[in-house]
């Protein structure tokens, strides 16, 4: 009788242990699956070539705001600051070597830069993927026929411009240093030209008298392009 009771007790203990083990196993697997499910991610696409207006989307938008200043190193090793171009319309274009649409608009920028050189337009190409290496960046820029300055980003400038979650991303900065238009994705050449015209027309006369001087502007070729440069006080 005693032996039977012992067997029953052992059975109850055994059943309890196994039920607990089963429950524990189930709980662990549930947690593992939950963690895996949390990794499912989906993003809504940006609109290609869309003009970004203030208040649109999640990220901070720059239109109407002062363009954040920066000093970066160009492909030919020179320090280039946005403030070097104070008083001139500047197109700040972020791109990357792995970005197909970026490479399409670069020759257009080159063409439009020449077309609007008389109005002081400058284009700065900021390579977002410095980790690709100077050689790869130079190769892409050369293939695109770019002679405007290509600058190597430092990680901070992307943040200053609102974080770049899409490329190409362009900021059209007027002569007063204000972002007139911000675009994300590839637009048409006509769109780009319209934005350039808008930027040149924006801001009216510079707020302070500027002294015009001949200056050497860093270029991809490293030869230094001679251009009219407006020099004023203060930073952008």
């Amino acid at each position: 009788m005693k032996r039977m009771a012992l067997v029953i007790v052992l059975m109850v203990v055994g059943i309890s242990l196994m039920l607990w083990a089963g429950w524990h196993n189930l709980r662990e697997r549930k947690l593992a699956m939950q963690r895996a499910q949390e990794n499912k991610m989906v993003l809504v696409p940006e609109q290609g070539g869309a003009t970004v207006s203030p208040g649109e989307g999640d990220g901070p938008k720059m239109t109407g705001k002062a363009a954040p200043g920066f000093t970066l190193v160009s492909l030919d090793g020179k320090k280039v600051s946005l403030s070097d171009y104070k008083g001139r319309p500047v197109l700040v274009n972020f791109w990357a070597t792995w970005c197909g649409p970026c490479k399409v608009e670069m020759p257009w920028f080159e063409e439009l830069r020449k077309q609007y050189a008389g109005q002081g337009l400058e284009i700065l190409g900021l390579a977002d993927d410095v980790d690709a290496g100077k050689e790869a960046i130079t190769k892409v820029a050369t293939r695109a026929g770019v002679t405007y300055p290509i600058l190597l980003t430092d990680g901070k400038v992307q943040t200053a411009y609102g974080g770049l979650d899409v490329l190409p991303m362009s900021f059209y900065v007027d002569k007063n240093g204000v972002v007139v238009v911000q675009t994300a994705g590839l637009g048409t050449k006509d769109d780009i030209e319209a934005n350039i015209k808008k930027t040149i027309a924006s801001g009216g006369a510079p707020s302070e008298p500027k002294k015009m001087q001949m200056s050497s502007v860093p270029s991809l070729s490293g030869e230094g392009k001679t251009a009219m440069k407006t020099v004023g006080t203060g930073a952008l």
Partner: protein
Amino acid sequence: MRLAGGFLAGVALSSTFLGSGIGSAQQLDGVPAKPKGYVIYAAEPQVIKAGRPSVLELRFQVREGFHVNSHTPKSELLIPTALKLQPVDGIKAAEIAYPAGTPYSFSFEPNEKLDVYTGNFIVKVPVVAVAGEHTLDGSLRYQACDNAACYPPKTLPVQVVFTAK
């Protein structure tokens, strides 16, 4: 005593079925609350034979309207899709097998041929695992574009839960 042993074995068996049965039903649970990426990992528990060469299949889906480079893009400048798994005791993994990509060209650049994944694609991981429950952690690195823009490279955490028996 023999009766007790048989009963215990029965309980052990049912507790194993309890765990694995509900485990496989869990793949339908959970819908992403906030979109964060361009590729979805369809996490689902798998069962393989213990101690024998087997293949784990990792199912991914590229969100509609996007493409990602295949594992072998046609340009060295492009970022290939690549899976990295952390080594775990009891699992011997062989070389990861990626599917072939499909040819793709941007409409604005028809002569530039790309090799991409769109829609669903499966990455296969050959393994030999000892008997038991296993979890492989890793990540999928990819770089996505749509028809007019590209997006910085992303790393998607991946967890493979499987049973070898």
